[in-house]
């Protein structure tokens, strides 16, 4: 497959174009996604191609939009609901937690909810406390949901296409800072199954687990660590649910050390859960405690210096790696 460099947002757009062409039951609703093409141009051109029945602007009604998406999924369509910021998904949390995630079980498996909620999260640019959150842990804790957080254009495309072909509700969480990043995306069909981690860089001394916007940062850290003679493996689960435990445990078995990097706040984040799994299942292969580099336990402040201080930076990752490498029995 020939590669091309395209942007994350273009990769997402390609996925939407291709899948909507393939499956007429896919439709998209969201604020400003039709005429205007969305805040990040991900849906640009779809209205012209697929028409106003399948591409619709909505009022500011997040709970309603999500509920309508869930109902439509139950009744045989493949809705994509775009929520501008993951923060706003809180307005439709009931529909996500109590309806989308539960319908399959409540019907004894007879009903399915092939619903995709596209949204974006993360810090950046001083958009402050209500537009900067990383909330994946909330969805991660709710059985029945799939949680997808692509870090590269290729993953974004492949995972979105897969999302539109499976039967369970998906929280597809993009990152506001990744839309303009470029990466190689193969020509032609690209479908990336859920639950398969990707080793973004091979290494032997320490396993770095990261996702979404923490991947570029972690790769930079790994680059610098290499210059210091430290070989870091960078593992991107890509989908948090399902989580590729096998790949994680395999990497940790190789390196015996692990640092998990997460933009979300430290307390109760997904990193804690991954740490608890590694600890339970690979206790004796660990040469040092699993260390977590995460956001501070705080809402994100407006001030850019404080915003930066609130989330992991490259040097925090490097410091954590150094710490697990130099760990000595107390």
């Amino acid at each position: 497959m020939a590669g091309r460099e395209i942007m994350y947002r273009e990769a997402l757009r390609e996925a939407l174009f291709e899948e909507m062409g393939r499956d007429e039951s896919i439709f998209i609703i969201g604020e400003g996604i039709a005429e205007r093409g969305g805040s990040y141009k991900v849906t640009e051109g779809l209205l012209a191609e697929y028409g106003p029945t399948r591409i619709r602007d909505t009022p500011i009604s997040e709970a309603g939009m999500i509920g309508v998406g869930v109902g439509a999924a139950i009744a045989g369509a493949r809705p994509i609901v775009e929520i501008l910021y993951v923060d706003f998904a809180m307005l439709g949390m009931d529909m996500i937690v109590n309806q989308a995630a539960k319908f399959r079980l409540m019907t004894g498996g007879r009903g399915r909810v092939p619903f995709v909620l596209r949204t974006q999260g993360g810090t950046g640019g001083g958009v402050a406390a209500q537009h900067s959150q990383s909330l994946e842990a909330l969805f991660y804790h709710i059985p029945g949901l799939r949680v997808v957080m692509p870090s590269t254009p290729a993953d974004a495309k492949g995972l979105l296409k897969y999302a539109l072909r499976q039967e369970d509700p998906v929280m597809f969480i993009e990152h506001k800072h990744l839309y303009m990043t470029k990466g190689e995306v193969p020509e032609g069909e690209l479908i990336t199954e859920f639950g398969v981690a990707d080793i973004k860089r091979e290494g032997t001394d320490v396993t770095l687990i990261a996702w979404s916007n923490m991947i570029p940062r972690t790769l930079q850290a790994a680059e610098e660590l290499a210059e210091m003679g430290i070989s870091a493996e960078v593992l991107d689960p890509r989908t948090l649910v399902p989580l590729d435990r096998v790949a994680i445990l395999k990497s940790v078995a190789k390196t015996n050390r692990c640092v998990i990097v997460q933009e979300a706040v430290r307390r109760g984040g997904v990193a804690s859960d991954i740490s608890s799994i590694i600890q339970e299942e690979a206790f004796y292969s660990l040469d040092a405690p699993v260390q977590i580099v995460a956001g501070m336990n705080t809402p994100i402040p407006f001030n850019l210096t404080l915003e930066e201080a609130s989330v992991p930076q490259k040097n925090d990752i490097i410091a954590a790696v150094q710490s697990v490498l130099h760990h000595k029995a107390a």
Partner: protein
Amino acid sequence: MASKKRENTPSKELLEKLFTTAYRIRNFETEGIKLYRRGLVRGYFHPYLGQEGIATGACAALDERDYIASTHRGHGHCIAQGAEVEGMIAELLQKETGYCKGYGGSMHIADITKNNLGANGIVGASTPLGVGAAMANQVNGSDAVTVAFSTDGATNNGTFLESLNLAAIWDLNFILIVENNQYAVSTTLAEATRETELYKRGEAIGVESHRIDGNDSLLVYETVADAVKKCRAGLGPILIEAVTFRHSGHHVNDPGKYMPEDKLKYYKDRDPVDRARDNLINMGKMSAKDVKAIEAKIEAEFEAAVKAAEAAGEVSIEEFREFVEGY
């Protein structure tokens, strides 16, 4: 089906259908409560007693392509939309032959093969889910109509405004039936809102809205049949406020002492099952004996269903574990 058209003289067929459904619901609830009292049914049980006219009339106006979404008080909708009593009883008895394999129970009961989105434990949820079904049908090029059964309580919830508004701007084939039984548990509608004529909320966002007697299954049928016709002609959505009253407390363990006796009497005097029976006898010219035979058949069907459900297999923990693998 001919009976789908608005009629001035209703056919005997229609009247029989209305009575049969209403009586089947009545019998299901009355007998189901007995099972509950015997400890055979667990969890919540919100009887539809007194409100049978609404589900009965509404679903009679639908055909196979059409969808419904239901509430926590969902047995009646489930029956009216064509579910078999056996799968329902089995569900209440937590059996694997239940419609939801015993995983759902009363609050989530549904025969989803009948385009029923299910009962729901979250007050207000049926409206957005129903609008979603209507949206799916629009996208998929079907002229199916979706009826969301909802409640007076749900009209004070944000989901009401948001999702009905979406249905309106998208001209969906959606009918919202607000079952106004004037109470949310023990809270009266007048305590919950200043304006107790709920249909006005539909009008305020440009939705054709009606307020009718929900205890008259024939009127409900006619109003919904008309709304269905309008929807299929692209004139949806439509809101129908159907006024009614519970015959008992909120759930089987609520004695409902707060319900004023005179009001209860007023509505019991206008019992929807009695009225459906009267219609069948008076307008449909069915003999009292034939009516009795229908009742007996429904009762027997229920008893057989209970027997079958009791004899059915228990759920399997192993199967459950397998089912939720990868959840």
